[in-house]
Structures are given as C-alpha cells and as structure tokens.
C-alpha cells in the first residue's frame, strides 16, 4: 500500500524524548509515578500471597492445609485484610489527587489547546486578544521551565484527550466544555504527547511535541510567534509565496503579516521552525513539506487537507516548500 512510503519518516520522529509516566519531568507526574511504584509493589506482594495460599491449598498435605478450610479464613483474607489495605490506599490516593489539582500559583501561564481532527491548535491567550493577535502555533506546546502552566483544553469537533505523560495525567477535550490542567515542567528538553481518546480515522497519527525551554529562550520564542514573517530572501521563496496565494492555501492557513488568515488548518507562521509536520508525523524540511502538500491524503488519509500533487507543478511545489521552510 501507498502508506508504506511514510514508514522511514515514522521512524525518524522518534529521535528524542520518551512518552512515559514512569520518567517524570515535573512535580505532578512525579507524584503519580511514586504512587504507581507503590501500587506495583503492593500489588505484586498481594498477588504472590494469594497465589501462594492457593498453591498451598491445592498442593500441601491435607493435615496442613485444613487450617485454611474455614469461614474465619475467608472472613480474614476476604474482608478484613482488603478493607484495611484499601482504606489506607484510599486516604493516601485522595491526598495525591488533591495535590494534583490544587493550583500552586494564582497566575499561571495560560495556554489554550484545541483538539481538532487530527491536530492540535495551541494558543497563548496572555499575549493578545484574538487568534490573529496572540501567539498561535500547532502540534507543539512550548513551556517555560519551572513555571506553573494552566492548559485550557477544548475541542473543535469530537472528543479528544491530551496526554503528556511525563508531566501530568491525561484530560479530555470535550466539545462545549473547557477542562483545565495544571502542570509544571522542571527540566528543559523535548517530550512527546498524544491523543488518547479515539477521535476517528487518524486517531493513531495525532501526536505533538512539548518543548520545555529556559524562560528567556521561551520569551524569545513567544515574541517571534507574534511577529510578522520575514520577507522571502530568494527568488524561489518569492515564487513559493506566490504559489501559496494562487493555490488558495490562505483560505485555511494563517501566515502572520500577510493577508492570509485562514483558521481551519494550522497556523503556518513559523512552520519552518517546528519539530513536526502532520501532528508528530514527520520532521519539517523541504522534502517532507513538499511530500505532505502533494500527497497528504496518501500519508494521512482522511485528514482535512486536500492533496495538491496533481494541481501543482513539481517546480511550484518545491518553491512553496522552500518558502514554508524559511518561515522560522
């Protein structure tokens, strides 16, 4: 099948960052990881105990195993023991639940994440009023290290769920509602996250990267997202920009500082500097950009973007990709 072409690309995206709750990078995931190990230890011990009792009841000589053949054994093992264990566990886990949802600060950095089939729109509402003004990006969440962040999660179509396991548990994005998630990343680097509520045909290919940056670096990044894009520097890039207009890309995509302000698809203002294309699918460079524009329905069938492989000439396609790559 045609899908086979993208396999090497799938492998490429996996070069940095892991996606697991067992390697916490922040305080919230840290609390859950501790609890997880406690549950594993306790669970393994109880499993060994119960299976040991079973083996004893089945294999031991009758005079020894008779000791367990009583109602009292059932009451002790089946009611008293779990009741005490579970009561302790409940109290402990409630404490952790509270710590996970309690805010640390009154004014966290707010980030809106909107789930769409099958990509993520990311907005920084503290930086401006409307989507044309505030910093907007896609499939990538930039976070300052050490600062508490509140993610405002909503959906543009069906239910999605945002999971960034190294930082926090998942939370659903439900049409008509806004869910709030607090988290804090304590070390810089790149993490992978993914949609965990089945959202349709390409649910499997709906990932994103979280980029944790030093505060100064983050501020600079944020400012760059709001600035107009640089003018084309080569003739090819200029031609690419022209193709962008002629092909009607601006009806769905926005580019800062131009007349193109479409909001149906990802904002492309700084596409060249992003880590991924197609929601965590490819690295971003000329070749992948051209391939995506030409064959998006082969690479990720069912996504909202039409394929332009037949409408654009090879030259125009490469020019367009060159311009987009230069939007950094």
């Amino acid at each position, binding site marked *: 099948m045609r899908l086979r072409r993208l396999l090497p690309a799938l492998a490429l995206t996996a070069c940095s960052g892991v996606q697991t709750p067992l390697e916490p990078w922040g305080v919230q995931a840290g609390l859950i990881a501790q609890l997880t190990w406690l549950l594993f230890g306790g669970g393994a011990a109880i499993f060994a105990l119960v299976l040991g009792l*079973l083996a004893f009841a089945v294999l031991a000589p009758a005079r020894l195993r008779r000791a367990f053949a009583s109602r009292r054994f059932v009451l002790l093992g089946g009611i008293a023991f779990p009741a005490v264990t*579970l009561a302790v566990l409940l109290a402990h886990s*409630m404490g952790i639940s509270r710590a996970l949802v309690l805010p640390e600060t009154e004014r966290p950095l707010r980030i809106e994440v909107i789930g769409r089939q099958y990509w993520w729109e990311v907005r920084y509402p503290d930086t401006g009023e409307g989507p044309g003004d505030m910093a907007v990006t896609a499939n990538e969440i930039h976070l300052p290290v050490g600062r508490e962040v509140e993610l405002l999660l909503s959906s543009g179509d069906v239910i999605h769920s945002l*999971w960034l396991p190294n930082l926090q548990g998942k*939370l659903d994005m439900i049409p008509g509602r806004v869910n709030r998630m607090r988290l804090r990343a304590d070390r810089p680097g790149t993490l992978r996250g993914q949609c965990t509520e089945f959202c349709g045909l390409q649910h499997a290919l709906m990932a994103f990267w979280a980029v944790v940056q030093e505060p100064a670096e983050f501020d600079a990044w944020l400012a760059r997202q709001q600035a107009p894009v640089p003018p084309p520097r080569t003739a090819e890039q200029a031609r690419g920009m022209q193709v962008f207009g002629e092909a009607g890309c601006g009806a769905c995509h926005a580019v800062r500082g131009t007349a193109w302000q479409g909001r149906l698809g990802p904002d492309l203002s700084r596409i060249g500097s992003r880590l991924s294309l197609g929601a965590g699918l490819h690295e971003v460079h000329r070749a992948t950009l051209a391939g995506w524009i030409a064959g998006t329905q082969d690479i990720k069938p069912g996504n909202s973007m039409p394929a332009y492989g037949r409408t654009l000439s090879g030259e125009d396609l490469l020019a367009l990709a060159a311009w987009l790559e230069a939007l950094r």
Partner: protein
Amino acid sequence: MDTNPPRAATDLPNPLPRPEAELAALEAVWESPRGWRRITEINNNFIGPLFVGTALLFFLLAGLLALVIRAQLAWPGLTLVDPATYNQLFTMHGTVMMFLFAVPAVEAVAIALLPAMLGARELPFPRLGAYAYLIYAIGGLSFYCSIFFGIAPDGGWFMYPPLTSKENSPGVNTDMYLLGIGFIEISAIAGAIELIVGILRCRAPGMTLGRMPIFAWAMLVFAAMVIFAFPAVIVASTLLELERAFDWPFFLPERGGDPLLWQHLFWFFGHPEVYVIFLPAAGMVSMIVPAMARTPLVAHSLVVLALVGTGFLSFGLWVHHMYTTGIPALSLAFFAAAGFAVSIPSGLQVFAWIATFAAAPRRIRFDTPTLFILGFLFIFVLGGLTGVMVSVTPFDWQAHDTYFIVAHLHYVLIGGMVFPLLGALYYWAPTLGRPLSERLGKWAFWLLFLGTNVTFFPMHISGLAGMPRRIYTYPAGFGLEVWNAVSSAGAAMAAAGAAVLLLDVAKNFRLGGEQSSPWRAGTLEWVTNTNYGPRSIPRVRDRYPLWSEPGLAKEVEAGGHYLPFTATGRRETLITSPAEAEPQYVAVLPGVGWGHVVAAIGTAGFFLSLTGEFLIEAALFFALALGGILAWLWQGSDPGPLPPREADIGGGIVVPTYATGAVSTASWAMVCLMLVQGTAYACLLGSYLFLWLVNGDAMWPPPGQGLPVAGFGLAALGFYAAGAASLQAAARLLAGRSPWPHRLALALAALLLLAGTAADGWALWQGGVRPSLHAYGAASWALFAWQGMHAAIALLMAGYTLARSLARLLDAERRQAMDVTRLFWIYTAGQGAVGLALLHLFPRLLA
C-alpha cells in the same frame, strides 16, 4: 456425608416400580420434531446447547478479528489493513465479544443447565427463550457480516458522540451498531426475565433459597442486573439514533446537548456489564470447585452475600470510565471508594475457593476443569489487582485509554469469564452428552493459559511506555516494538489453544446419549436428564442432595419422586413458591411451533431494514414479527384449565394444574417487564434533568421555545386516569354473566388512553416545544415518544384481550390476557402521569 440410609421403594412419594405407560406418555409429550422441523423446538435441552454453541462461535469469530489486530500491531508501521478497516476491526472485536459472546454465553449456559440444576423440567417461558435465541443468532450473524462489506461500526464499542453523530459519521456503520446491538439487548432482557421467574418459581420442592445452588444465585443476580442496567444502553442508543435520524440534539453542545450525557448512560450500563459477565462465571466456579474438591463450598452464605453485594455496588461505579472527563476530584473520590468496595466481594469469593480447595478430603486431581479454575484464579487475581490500581484516580489519569487498560480488561474478562466458561464446558459436557477429551483439554488449557499471559502481560508495559489504545500503528524508537511483537506471538499461541478446543468439541462432543457423572458431584444436574428433564422431581433437603442421599439419583431416574408423569398430557413443569419452594401448581407449557420462528425472522429483518433505511421492507418485517408473536400467544399462551383440574404429584401432595392472577408465572414476568420499563423511563427522566443541569434555569426552556400548555396536560392526566379506571372495571366485569359490559369497558379504556396520549402530545406542540431546535425540546419529545410507544403497546394488548373475549377464550377463570394487560396498563398510566408532572411542573418551578 452418607447420612441417610437408602429408602425402601415403597417409602418414596411415588411407589416403584412405575407403570410402563407413564414413561412412554412422558416421552411422547416431550418428543422433539426431527430433521429441519427441529427449528421449531423450544426445549431448553435443545435450545440451551445450541445457544452455548452459537455464543462460542461468536467467541471464535471475534477472536479472529483480534488476530488481525495483533498482526497489524506486531511491528511499527505495518500496513496489513488500512485505518478505516482497523477501526472497524477493533470496534467489532469489542462489540461482538461483549454483546454477542460474553452476555449470551452465560445466559446460554443457564438455559442449558438451570432447569436440571433446579430439578425442573423446563423454564417457565420456553418459547420466549427460543425467540430470544433466534433473534440473537440471526441478528448477530447478520451484524457480524457487516465487516465484510465495510459497513461495520467504526466508532469503538462505546460509540462516543459527537464522533458518532451524523455530521462526523454519516455512514450506516453507526446505525448498524445502534439498531443491530439495540435489539440484541432485547434478547438479553427477555432471557433475564425467563431466568428470574424460572429461578424463583421452578425449583424442586424443598430447595429453599438457602439450599439453592450458587450458580442459580449468580444467575438471579445476573438477571436482576440485566434488568436494571441494559435499559440504560437501550435508551442511550435510542437517543443517539433519534439524533442521527431526526436531528434531535441530545449530544450536540451547540444546541444545548452534551456529549457527556451519552457517557453517563452508556457506563451506567457498561460498568455493571462487567459484573454481569463475571458473576455467572463466579457462580460456575463455585459449583466446580466443591465438585473437584469433593467437599461443600466453604462460607456458602458469605459467597451468596458477595454475589448480591457485587450486584448492588456495581451500579455505583460507572464514573470509573470517566475519570479523565474533568469531573471534580472530590466526586471522583466517592467513585474510587466504590471501586475499592466492589473488589472486596470478589476477593472474598477467591478466599472461599481457596478455603474449599484446602478442605478437600483427598488430594486434588488436576483434571481439565480444575486446571481451568486454577488458571482462572491466576489471571483473575492479577486482573483484579490492576483493577484496584486503575480505580486509584491519579494512576488512572495516566493509565486510562492506554494499553495498560487493554491488559487489565483482558485479564479480568478472559480470566474472570472465559476460563471459567471453558472449565464449565469440560466440567458439564457429560451432563449434556459425550464428555470431551482430557488430553486435548489439557493441551487447550496450557496453550490458552500461556498464550493469554504472553499476549496481555506485556501490554501493561507497552501501556506505561506510552502506547494509547485504538491506534492502528505506532512509531518505532519508543521502546514499543518488543512488547508488541511478544503480544502478537502470544496471540498466535492462544489461537492455537482455541483451535485445539474447537477440534476437541468437533471430534468428541455429541449431544444426548448416555450421560455420565465423572466428578461425582452433589447437585441435581448430575441426575440423568433428557428432553423432559429428570424422570421425577425430588424433594431437596440439602445443598448437595446427591451427596447427602446417595440413592437419590437412582430413585429419581426410576420415577420414584414427584410428578413422574404428565398430568394433563401436555408439557409441564412444577411451579413452587419463591422462598420455601413448596409446590403450588403444575404449569402447562407451550410445545413446538412456528410462531416464535416467524417472529424472530421478522424482528431481525425489521431492525436490519431500518439500518439501511429500507422503510417498506421494515414495515413488512414488522408486520411479520407482530403476526408471529400474536400467533404464538394466541395458540400457546393460557390454554385454560385442562382436565384433570388437580394432580396428585406424589406423597399426598395435590396441586392444581392451572393458575391465574398473582401466583401465575405470567404475572411475575409482567412485573419484571415493568421494572425494565421503569428503569428505562428513569433513564429518560434522568437525561432530561441532566440536560437541564448542563443548560441552567435560564435556558430551560430556551428563548424561542415555550412551556407545554397546562390545560391539555391536565386533560391528558384526566384521560389517563379515567382510562386506567375503565380498564380496572373491565377486569372486574370479566366475572359478570354477560361478556358485553367487559368488552365495552375495554373499548372505552382504549379510547380514553388514545385521547390522553393525543392531549399529552398536543400540549407540547401547542406550547411551542420543538424537538430539533434545542435539547430542551428533544428531551421533552423523547419522554413523550416513549410514552406514546407504551400507549401503542397497551392498545395492542387491549385489542388482543378483546379478540380473546370475542373468540370466547377469555372468562372469569381463563383470564391471563386480561391480567397482564391490566398490569401493563396501570404502569403506562402511571408513567404518563410522571411524565406530565415533569414536563409541565418542573420548568414552571424554575421560572
């Protein structure tokens, strides 16, 4: 254990030897049609094993889908199937396993075994059971075939809107689920009613609730849970189908709906569903363990308590599946506590089984059933412990919707249900026909046991390594490759086990013939059982009658106990009182017939035509179904008193051979049905109130919509009340000399109900309530539509009663049609009054 000395042949309720003609008559009455006419047979000894076989077929079919899934996921980026097919595959795998395998399988085992276990000839409504089986088999196979045409459901077995709304899923795939599965739920409910009445009313004399086998207890709790849980998913499916077909916005937030309403309704069914599947399996284990250990179950009454407790607690757990929807942490703590609490009864049963093994007088032999039980304990205890983990809220925020959950649920369901079921297959096969092979059985066990663990244990790890559920591929380089490859290899191993099992059944199992009792168990199903059930029905004095009275099986088989004959020359079973099981009457049962077959074909055809929007075909099939049902009722139900009016069943016990009114099983079934209807209506009322909560007072009604007109509402209330009174009068007038006052009262009641329903709906329309503009209107009209459907059924029942009266098949004594109509009518009128109160008073209170 051998406490009682053997009785002399003359001390038995019916002295031995029995006259030869007696057995011949019994055999003639219960004889099955041969050849293709066998399809008209309704006997549980035929339908039961067929039902079990069909359920196991669906197990294999759904397993095949899983093998494709595992092949696709064996390595990153494989393209064995395209994404659209993959989504259908996992949706169908879950749906078929849950709806077409797990629930029907346990119901099937009950239909096959319960009559024998209870010492009954048959369950009280064999035709209903056969009808339930047929719609399940026909509908289920058609539903399964949708995958070959690419029109299988693809929204996950949980079908969350708005992904499944018309806009996002325009194809028939979703309708296939909503209609296809919806009516199979009806089959499950029909089976549940049959089981409840059967367990409570068809036990052998002296089998008090305290002496009833644990499996019967488990099935009683199972059936009660079906009655209270399944209506929620029927209501949810109905609402979503109304939204898709008529644009009534229950789940669309832009018009006041809420996607979470679906999740509450679905999981109110879906969580109890897990225990609906597990409890019968636990009941089987509680039967097999004592037999294999040759000692009574330790802590019997605690185990019963655990079953009942699980039934109650499981209804407080549905939010477990919604931890990540943003529900406040404090309310989640309540549900976490409930989740912990429900693990206690399961743990208690595990300890009771361990204690029973420990009590074995001799060494345990590792026969195949024992192996399956031990394998069950290993897998189920592990799954239970991960279950406690995922009810810990913060952990679930990480684990939810990852492969950790896939691992957990397969451990619970395969461990908690499949292994006991397969153990049961090997254990009980000798009571139904030829036993299975011990050698092949052990091969099947080890392949399945190792295969299950090799498949699913690594999924705990891949889940925590970041792999979400329901993805058709995953990237390389995240450490997922190894675990997935191992899982796929394990799946192949489990498939080999299933193949060995299939081979064993195909090669060795034959229905009927010489029955044996290789485990020398103590309960009644091990008495020789044929078409007519046991030759005679014993008095039960103990939980394990075959152990405490070693001669009992022989006496029963020789016909020395109760009712060794047919009293009326028809198929019969003995009806006893619900708690103490004292004989009350001999119920005449319907025999073979075509009515239920025609009705089943019609029902399945109706729903499948609706799926494809073939409306004319749907109408024809509906007529066929209705005709079949009416024909079956007309011919077989309420045959009236037959000679002799009383029967001496032995031991000086004389009981009537006919009953009507509150003592009859028909009335009991109607009360069960009213509970189903009431639960469904409560779900609708709850949906209305939930949508109000979401929208707030100011939007209830929203601008542009009004309140139902009070005057018409009051009129409707009056009509409903007058109609119910008139029907009551009709029931009383049946005792009169002339049939005409009764008939007139019946007709008047029908007119009044019709007028009430019209006024009820007119009040909404005149008040400016419109179903497609806003959830307010949609919820209001849904309540009315439900009421209208009940009114239509009530009218149909009145018409039937009238026809019975005109045909002189209804009188002061032979009055079953009148009695059940009366019960349903009173329910309908009451439901109408509650609906009117909510629709008219509630929004006015807000203003």
